[in-house]
């Protein structure tokens, strides 16, 4: 993956962050991402991100669980090995409700968590460039991608004017890869501007 240049602005309060996001978008810059220590509600809308459809995936996984459980138990008790249990019907749907329900929940939960990890590219040994160590502590870190024509200096001072308390430029891989944590760190160059 190619190295890219990013201008990073750090904000200390979400009240300052929201207008800054609006201003940066209005000025035509491309926001790579905003890293926050906790879910800031409304920030996804402010950044123009679409809603997630993860819950739909959860529903589909649940549906898979339901059908698997019902068809499997039906097959076992009516086709594969019908057992006479006190003369009760072999196709005993009401008695299968507990297992069907549990399987629905299990499949939905496991499927959804795995999809979440997959689409967010989260796994042990995943190596990612973290733009600021305090992004998981108390800073809201806005990262703007630089294009060919972007004037870094101008962008940096613009970010400062929107209320960023700390601005710097970083060159980093945009994506992620599986690797070791400390070795790969050498790839990055970091230059402070303001």
């Amino acid at each position, binding site marked *: 993956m190619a190295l890219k240049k990013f201008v990073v602005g750090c904000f200390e309060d979400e009240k300052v962050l929201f207008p800054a996001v609006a201003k940066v978008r209005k000025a035509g810059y491309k926001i790579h991402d905003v890293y*926050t220590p906790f879910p800031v509600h409304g920030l996804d809308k402010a950044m123009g991100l679409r809603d997630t459809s993860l819950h739909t995936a959860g529903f589909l996984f649940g549906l898979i669980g339901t059908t698997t459980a019902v068809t499997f138990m039906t097959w076992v008790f009516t086709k594969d090995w019908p057992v006479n249990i006190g003369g009760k019907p072999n196709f005993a749907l009401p008695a299968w409700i507990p297992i069907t329900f549990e399987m629905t929940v299990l499949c939905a939960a496991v499927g959804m968590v795995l999809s979440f990890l997959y689409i967010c590219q989260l796994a042990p040994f995943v190596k990612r460039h973290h733009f600021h160590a305090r992004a998981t502590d108390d800073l809201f870190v806005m990262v703007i991608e630089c294009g060919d024509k972007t004037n870094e200096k101008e962008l940096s001072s613009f970010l400062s004017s929107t209320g960023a308390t700390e601005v710097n430029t970083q060159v980093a891989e945009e994506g992620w890869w599986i690797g070791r944590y400390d070795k790969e760190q050498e790839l990055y160059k970091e230059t402070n501007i303001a």
Partner: protein
Amino acid sequence: MSLTKYESQLREPLVNGNKTYGQVTNDIVHTIEVKPTRLWYIGFYVSVAFLLFGVYSVYREVTYGIGQWNVNRTIGWGWDITNFVWWVGIGHAGTLISAILLLFRQGWRTGVNRAAEAMTIFAVMCAGQFPIFHMGRVWMAFFTLPYPNTRGPLWPNFNSPLLWDVFAISTYFTVSLLFWYSGLLPDLATVRDRAKTKLRKHLYGLASFGWSGSTKHWQRHESLSLVLAGLSTPLVLSVHTIVSFDFATSVVPGWHTTIFPPYFVAGAIFSGFAMVQTLMLITRKVMNLQDYITLGHIEAMNKVIVLTGSIVGCAYLTELFMAWYSMVPFEQDIFFKYRIAGPYGWSYWLMMTCNVISPQLFWFRKLRRNVTFTFIMSIVVNIGMWFERFVIIVSSLYRDYLPSSWSVYYRPTIWEVGFYLGTFGLFFTCYFLFSKYFPVIAIAEIKHVLKTTGESFKNEMTALEQKEADSFYDEMHHDHHEEGNVKVAHH
């Protein structure tokens, strides 16, 4: 999806002290970064000792068979199924706090949910051992799973409540674990990014799965927690319902009753909250987290305890009434001759005192907010809830339909008790390790509610509310004048 957009001044702050985001991180992560206290070491080693004794008890049971226990042909389910139901019940409070209270938008859950979820997982781990080792030949435990085998394949009986239990408990454990760990990811990343040593950075880096705090990830994370909460809510109700089916679908007097599912679920939440109180009161004291687990949190949980305790009390009385009303001599005998009276009568009255009568003291606000009293009550409730399961199991079994198989002499052996003590060891060993290496409070969630329910925010809001109230009053006053004028004009 905000938890609380605006909160009235009548509600007390959820986070005391004028904290900033950085302070929240520091307060919670600090305990992970320093050496544990003496108290922690003592507690940990005592737990490990209990655990080892439990391991030896289980070793004896596995080697010499169920005969190591005093369960017999009449009382086939003695201490160990009692312990199973007790531990599963304790687990329920964690899911209730993390899932049901999330759906109900209860902001106060943020202070206690992480530790309560951990408690759920450890409690279910303890619970699962009992039915597994009760099988006797524990190495055959996998026979309960529907896997293609060389015996036909011969499948398990899907109509059996005991098999439903296998599915319910394993699903419950898996889903709770996923819910807990997915919530932990951002907080582990916080620990990672503060780490000073290389090893710590590496290990927390592994554990946090490379979490970065990206807005898109947060958006998905929120959706994930909401759906998992929605799934866990019916799940937690189903688990204890299914556990109660183990009894309710049988034809044993005292068990064969339709009230069991709601009665068991209420009892589970009741005992679970008591265990959360026990753990939280110790945690907040030892780790100095009184600002995050406030008296308000303790009071809220005590309110749940008095509610569920009263539901359980209602269920006890309903059972007695239904036994009398049913006109079935077996039911009546079990309840009136052998349960509330007879050789095990003392355990019934112990249960009644601990579960129904003593929690009623929580109607007094002073007692709800008293830490010492709450701590004692949390232990009392859990003793009572253990005896509830003991009463249900033993007092229904020791008087069979056949007087020839009646039995009174059920006393647990040291290895039966040792197994139970061993699960305490397991539970507390896990909890001690958790409290040392993981953030015991959900950091990100606390930060999320900080600006709406933190103390400094509340103070700001007081001034704001006063201003609004004043302007409202002025306006009303003004309106009345205008109305008066209009009326005059009409006349």
